[in-house]
Structure formats: C-alpha cells, structure tokens
C-alpha cells in the first residue's frame, strides 16, 4: 500500500487497541528505540528542531550576522505587499495547475496503450521512463535551454517547414510553457505507477462487461477509471507536492534570475534569492511557512475531494 493510502487509513481507523496489542505494548521498547535512534535524532535535529526554529525566524529580521530581531508579523505583512512574490505565486500555480494534470493525462494514456500482452513492453517502458530519471538534472535543464533557444532545435525544425519560431526561453509569454513541457516530458514515473495499478484490476470485470456488450469507452469510464482512482489520487497528491517545490529547471533555464521579466520566477526560486542571495533569512522563513501552508491546503483539498471520486475496493 502506498504512503498516502496508509495515511488515509490511519486517519480513518480509530478503534480501541486489541487485547494482543495491549499485551504486546512495551515489550520491545528498549530494542525499538535503539533501532530508531538515528531516525529519532534526525527527526529532532534535522526536521522538527529546524521547523520550530524556522517558525521563530519567520517572526524576526535576521541576516546571519546580527542576532535575530523580533518583528512580529512584519514579514507576513510584507508578503502581502510584495508584488514579485505575488507574481512568483502566479507562476508556480500556473506550473502546478497546468503541468500536473497534463503530465498525469499523458502518463495515463500511454499506460493504457501499454497494456498486457503488448510486445516490446519492457523496451517502451524504459524509453518512456528514462526522461523521468534525467529530467531533474542540471544537464537536461541546460539541454532544454538550448532546445528552446532562438537558434535551438525546435526553431531549426520549424525553419525546415518555413516557420520563424520565437525565442521561446527569452520570450516572457512562452518561457514558462517551455518549463511546463519539461515537466510533462517526465511523465514516466507516474506512468509506471499507473501501469502497476492497471495490473491490479481483475480481468473478470472486463469479461463481465463484455458479456453485457459494453464498448471500449464504457469499459474505460465504468471500470478502469473507478478502479484506478486511488492510484490517480496518489499520483495527484505526490505530483502536486513535488511540483510546488520545483527549482532546478527554473533556476538553470532562467540563469538563476527567474527571467525573462520574472516569467519563470518560481516561488522556491524567489525564496532562494531572498534567503541565500540577500541573506534575508527571516523573510525566507516566512515564505517557507507560507509554502508549507499552501501545500497543506492543496493536500487537504485533495483528501476532502477524494471522498467524492476515489473508489476504494475494501
């Protein structure tokens, strides 16, 4: 079961402890904590401690050199009036709301075409999966920058059929689109999760539908989609959380400044500039917490909405 599935069943199940669980309680405490020691230290020192510290810093003015100055909610008020931050939010939301559904749709379509018994399945699967592995690298971001450059591959191909393409990366209207395309290009990993999900659907459902004379489209809407909905939900939650944190591609493609005219200034890129470019650590912390809230809200909406469209077989 997936991490998200596990989490949703954990929140659903609230029964009392069974007798065995009570008896077992405390039996292995010492050994367990020894085994958990690295993880526990990490949780305190690397995760929870810094989280609390970052919450504190978000209410301060801190530049690493002088001790933090308590400024109350000033940083959050500043965020309200920060036009570049609003723009970075718009860019990031566009990226997530366009890129994620598009990528998942492509992943699902290709997964459906790659069905059981198709010859050369491992070969196709590898070809489609490879970009997912490389997509996050600086090297591929560099490649993308050239492909969509003024004299890049895309325009060379367009020139062959007599079209003068724009400078995709240098034009504020198309720069973000190029990065979204890079995201769609990495559809391989959700595709593999879809493929695994499709395997789980019992063949007898389709056989029964065929006896009833269902069309291919009917089988897709009535069987495949509902049976696959937990997997779609899982991919959706993961991709949204991941996409809000995208950084490398925007950084490399824009040369680190989110250009042209801030059209690729992702929220995380702006956060990086504030924190590690200008050492405005208090403001960067406030931004980080804002990001956490946004991701939390999106995930919560996902979980709530899932009650209406995700179908659990159990």
């Amino acid at each position: 079961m997936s991490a998200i599935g596990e989490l949703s069943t954990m929140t659903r199940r609230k029964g009392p402890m069974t007798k065995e669980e009570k008896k077992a309680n405390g039996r292995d405490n010492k050994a367990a904590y020894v085994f958990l020691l690295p993880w526990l230290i990490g949780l305190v020192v690397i995760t929870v401690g810094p989280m609390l510290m970052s919450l504190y810093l978000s209410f301060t003015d801190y530049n690493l050199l002088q001790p933090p100055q308590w400024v109350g909610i000033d940083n959050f008020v500043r965020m309200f009036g920060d036009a570049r931050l609003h723009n970075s939010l718009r860019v990031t939301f566009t990226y997530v709301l366009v890129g994620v559904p598009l990528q998942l749709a492509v992943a699902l379509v290709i997964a459906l075409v790659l069905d059981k018994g198709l010859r050369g399945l491992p070969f196709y699967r590898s070809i489609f999966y490879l970009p997912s592995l490389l997509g996050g690298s600086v090297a591929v971001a560099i490649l993308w920058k050239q492909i969509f450059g003024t004299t890049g591959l895309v325009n060379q191909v367009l020139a062959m059929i007599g079209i003068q393409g724009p400078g995709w990366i240098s034009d504020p209207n198309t720069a973000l689109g190029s990065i979204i395309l890079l995201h769609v290009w990495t559809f391989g990993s959700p595709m593999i999760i879809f493929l695994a999900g499709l395997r789980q659907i019992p063949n007898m459902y389709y056989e029964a539908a065929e006896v009833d004379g269902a069309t291919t489209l009917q089988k897709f809407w009535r069987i495949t989609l509902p049976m696959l909905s937990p997997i779609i939900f899982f991919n959706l939650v993961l991709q949204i959380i991941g996409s809000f944190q995208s950084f490398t591609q925007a950084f490399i493609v824009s040369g680190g400044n989110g250009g042209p005219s801030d059209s690729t200034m992702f929220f995380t890129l702006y956060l990086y500039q504030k924190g590690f470019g200008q050492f405005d650590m208090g403001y960067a912390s406030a931004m980080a917490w804002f990001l956490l809230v946004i991701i939390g809200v999106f995930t919560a909406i996902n979980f709530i909405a899932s009650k209406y469209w995700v179908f659990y077989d159990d």
Partner: protein
Amino acid sequence: MTKIQTLPAATEAESSKTSKSPRRRESPGNLAFSRNARIKGLIKHAILILVGGIMIYPLLWMVVSSLRPNDLIFREPGLWLNNLEMSNYTDGWSALTHPFGHYMINSAIVVLGSIVGNLISCSMAAYAFARLQFSGKKLFFGIMLLTIMLPFHVVIVPQYILFSQIGWVNTFWPLIVPKLLATDAFFVFLMVQFIRGIPKELDEAARIDGAGHPRIFLRVILPLMVPALATTTIFTFIWTWNDFFGALIYLTDPDMFTVPVALRAFVDSQSATSWGSLFAMSIVSLFPVFLVFLFGQRFLIKGIATTGIK
C-alpha cells in the same frame, strides 16, 4: 453494469480480443490474429514509436551535438554525423578550475556517503516499525509518513544556519549527515513495506533459537530485504548525483563543487558560446545515471511501482 446493446462490429472486435489473448500467451508465435486485432496492434505500436521517438530525440540530439563542431550545432536538427569531433570533450573537461573528473570524484564521495547512510539508518528504523512493538509506535509512524511530504524549504534555512555555525559549509557533511539520520523517510517506508511481506515465522524461529533483535535483524531480515536495499541504493545514487539545490547552498568553494554545481558554473563562465563542450560535459554528467538505469532497471521499476518514488 448497464446492458446496452452495442453495434455488432464493436462487439465482434471485443470478443475476438478476449478469445485470442489467452492463446497468444501460450504460443507467442501464433499468427492467428483476427485482422482487427492486428490493425489495432499496429496502430498502438505506431503511436508508441512516435511518442517514444519524440521523447528520446532531444537526448540523442544532445549526444550527437556534443560530437559536432560548434557552428554546426545551430544548423543541424538531424542526427547524422559527418565526422566525430572529440574536441568538445577535451575542451569541456578542462574548462573549469579543475578538470571535470575532480567534480565527479566530489559527487562520488557524496553519493557513496549518502548510500551508506540511507542503507544503515533507514533499514534500522524500518525494522523497528515493521517488527517491534513499542509505545508511541503509531504516533511515530504517522510522523514518519508526514515527513515524506514535508517540503524541505521549511527546514533549509535553520539547517543552513546550524551547519554554518558548526563550520560545515563547504564540506560534504551537510549533504551526508542527514542521510545517516534517516531523513529520507521514503526509504524507511519502502523498507517497512518490504519487511511486512517477509513471513514472521522466520524471525520467530530465530527467536526460539535464542537470537536477539540485533541478530534477527542482521542475520534474518537484512539478507532477505536485498531487493529493497538495492532500490534504495539506486534511487539514492540518482537523486544525490542530480541534487542541485543542496549542493548550491552548501558548496560555494569551487574545490568542493559536485557535478551539478560545476555544470552550472560552466554555463555561467561560457555565456552560451560553446554549446558543444557544455553538451559534452552534460553527457559526461548523465553517464553514471544512465549506467545505473541500465543495470538497475528491474529494481527501479519495481520500486517505483510499489511506492511511487521517482
């Protein structure tokens, strides 16, 4: 299920597909396909080859371009090569302060440390979560699952402050130590799932024979969870090798650059005049990932299909 009568042609196509599929599995050489199914298959393959070709084309073009003189890169969308131009590789290799191999070694150190860290600490935590009963187990397990989804930006500023105060900026420690402390909770979860699939009778038998938990963990569980350990190794390799954000923040001294930061420095220093050597070094930087992909595919696919790691 609705009982709508469909057009006879469609029904025929569907029923012929079901009657064929089991026979096809028995004898793959059997050519007794119906015409419909064969055309359907051909269309499928055509779509897949077309999409696959588009997907892979940029990568192939980068490989070919790295073997071309610079002025040709901007005029050749094709994949044919008149003669091999190796100067991009030699130029690129020595374009920065250090030869590119220096950055590869730096990356290799960070990758190796991260792999060792993840293997040890995540497997230990997973054993506790999967096999031991202890107070607070459910709470901790829930926290562990939540940390999988925590954006690292929330902790990066204080982490940076912490590591800079103990003088670890421009060392590899900030990139390795978190892995030694099992902060990649994804792998803890993956291993928990794997251990849950190992029959409990095995450790019970070992316990009857007088083995304690360290022994059961080392002698029974670890040898059986090799596939999960392999998946962890491969993904840690690829993620760490590609990690840009962490390296960008902690490694500002060119001596300490890992491959991604070195590539980025390369982009800046060349101001896009020598795409050839930039591509050549990009290929060099992707090569280890590609090798891991080739040899680890089986585990990669399985790992991603069961837990959804990237």
